[in-house]
């Protein structure tokens, strides 16, 4: 399996503050990868490093097997930055033309047809488009490049629910058609959980978790049962998050072994619960709990 992005102890510092540190990741190609974490977690820094806007302070990274700034990489990777910057005085047609000027093999005709299909007039100035239309133009510009890897920084933030759905729909149709790899960041898991089949969780400038969503859901369980029995579980399982009332214990565990205590009810954790649990954990380094699981399922 080829990798979309591979990093080794990657770090980026601004003065004395680390925006990203000790980031070792191997993101497989052919996935829609969600990059989730609170604001300031280092998501944007990681994406900027991956598209070559930033140079690393420490460590290494390769994108599609090559350095991000290599000419070959630039043509294969498309990026939609936060707030989807476009030139407001350009018309939509100018914007697509720009895609052609700056990228060999840019599919201008298809991008034009696609936007026309969405009812976006090509002669309109970008500055006068609605938020949803603006987002579609930014996406069309990125997709026109026919990228192997598309990176999007908070693509659906600031979009109303309808525009959000339309944006994700266009994106997922393109993924289904081309099989390209996608990395999209958000501070809200709800934005991503339907689209992503791979999750990278970041907080406080570090990667907390990195695995396919299937693996994550398979190995995490929520147990609810009497508090007096909790000790037996916490001593034999990895507890990601525990909350207690006077009598009851709520445990989110990494279930490497089955739980046999009948006093507990067991149900699978949702992605949202998982994300919240890992995010509220004190930092754990680079996802130590998930590593063995990932390799076990692939073996």
């Amino acid at each position, binding site marked *: 399996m080829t990798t979309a992005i591979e990093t080794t102890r990657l770090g980026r510092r601004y003065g004395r503050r680390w925006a990203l540190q000790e980031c070792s990741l191997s993101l497989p190609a052919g996935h829609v990868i969600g990059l989730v974490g609170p604001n300031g977690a280092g998501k944007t820094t990681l994406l900027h490093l991956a598209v070559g806007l930033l140079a690393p302070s420490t460590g290494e990274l390769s994108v599609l097997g090559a350095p991000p700034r290599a000419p070959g990489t630039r043509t294969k990777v498309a990026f939609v930055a936060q707030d989807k*910057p476009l030139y407001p005085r350009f018309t939509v047609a100018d914007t697509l033309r720009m895609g052609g000027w*700056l990228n060999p093999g840019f599919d201008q005709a298809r991008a034009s047809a696609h936007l026309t299909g969405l009812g976006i007039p090509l002669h309109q100035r970008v500055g006068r488009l609605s938020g949803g239309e603006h987002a579609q133009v930014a996406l069309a510009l990125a997709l026109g490049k026919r990228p192997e890897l598309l990176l999007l920084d908070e693509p659906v933030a600031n979009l109303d629910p309808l525009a959000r759905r339309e944006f994700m729909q266009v994106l997922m149709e393109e993924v289904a058609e081309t099989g390209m790899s996608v990395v999209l960041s958000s501070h809200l898991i709800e934005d991503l959980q339907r689209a992503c089949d791979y999750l990278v969780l970041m907080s406080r400038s570090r990667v907390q978790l990195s695995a396919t969503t299937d693996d994550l859901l398979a190995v995490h369980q929520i147990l609810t049962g009497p508090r007096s029995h909790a000790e037996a579980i916490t001593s034999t399982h990895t507890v990601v998050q525990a909350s207690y009332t006077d009598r009851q214990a709520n445990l989110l565990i990494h279930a490497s072994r089955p739980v046999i205590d009948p006093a507990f009810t067991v149900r699978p954790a949702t992605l949202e619960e998982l994300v919240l649990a890992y995010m509220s954990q004190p930092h754990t380094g680079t996802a130590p709990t998930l590593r063995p699981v990932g390799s076990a399922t692939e073996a």
Partner: protein
Amino acid sequence: MIALTWRQHRAQLLTAAALLAVLSGYVLFMGHQMTSYMASIGLNACLSSHGNCNVLARAFLDRFGSTPHVFSLLDLVPLLAGLFWGAPLIARETERGTHRLAWTQSVSRRRWLTVKLAAFTGAAILAAAIVSMLLAWWLRPFNQLIAVGAGGNVNRMSPGVFDLSGTVPAAGALFAFALGTAAGALIRRTVPAMAVTLGGYLALWLPLESQRYHFITPLTAHGPFGSTLPVPPSAYVIANSYTTASGHPIDFSVMAKACQTSHGNQTSVRLSCLAAKGFQFSTTYQPDSRFWSIQGMETGIFVAATVVLLGIAAWWAARRIN
């Protein structure tokens, strides 16, 4: 990339072209007025027959002698390249975040910057060359009169005219552009970058303005009071001064007291008396023959500053902006 540069900056470039067209129109119109007036009063005929044309020249200069000062109003025109081309070049991108769009396409950041810098550098040189050619053309009748000693004192050596003659306006425009670009890259906001460009430009331009006639030690001519000094009329006179017979500088008012006579409440100074007492008159000047030497030095200073500033801007844009 060239297509994008044109699409993105055509408004700025066309505005400059329109301003140049207005200036050219004015210069051509006034030039036509001058030449037809010279023909109508017979000044042309007089000049070509090598006669004494002083009276006709006076008439011409009374009418048109102050017009070259239009150009001294334009001395700071090269600064516009810094304010409106340089300062927004990178700052407007970073203000809107569009550099993240432009710099993540297949075209590299280095090429993006190279093409833009080349386009504006070329435009600045072209525009400045047109201005200096217009000015040189405008000055031709004045140069003719000066050459035959028929009067007039405004030529390419004059302050205000020198700035827009020869290679200095192009070099000044490049410096302003480079300064604006560097300020925009470092500050990342257009309006503060424009302010810094204005201040920085004046910080170099004002000293040049006051010091350029001293880049090369000026010549001095002196002789007894009342004599005609061998100062060519095309030279720029920096200062006139007076000395005593023994060579000490003396202020005119002090010197005049020695030869004052009073008739009732009228005071007059007899010039023959000043000459007789041995007072000397001296003139410090730069001859027109040094025009290109001084131009070369000033151009060199601007170009050196341009190279340094563009280097800083390019380095900063490549390394420090994300």
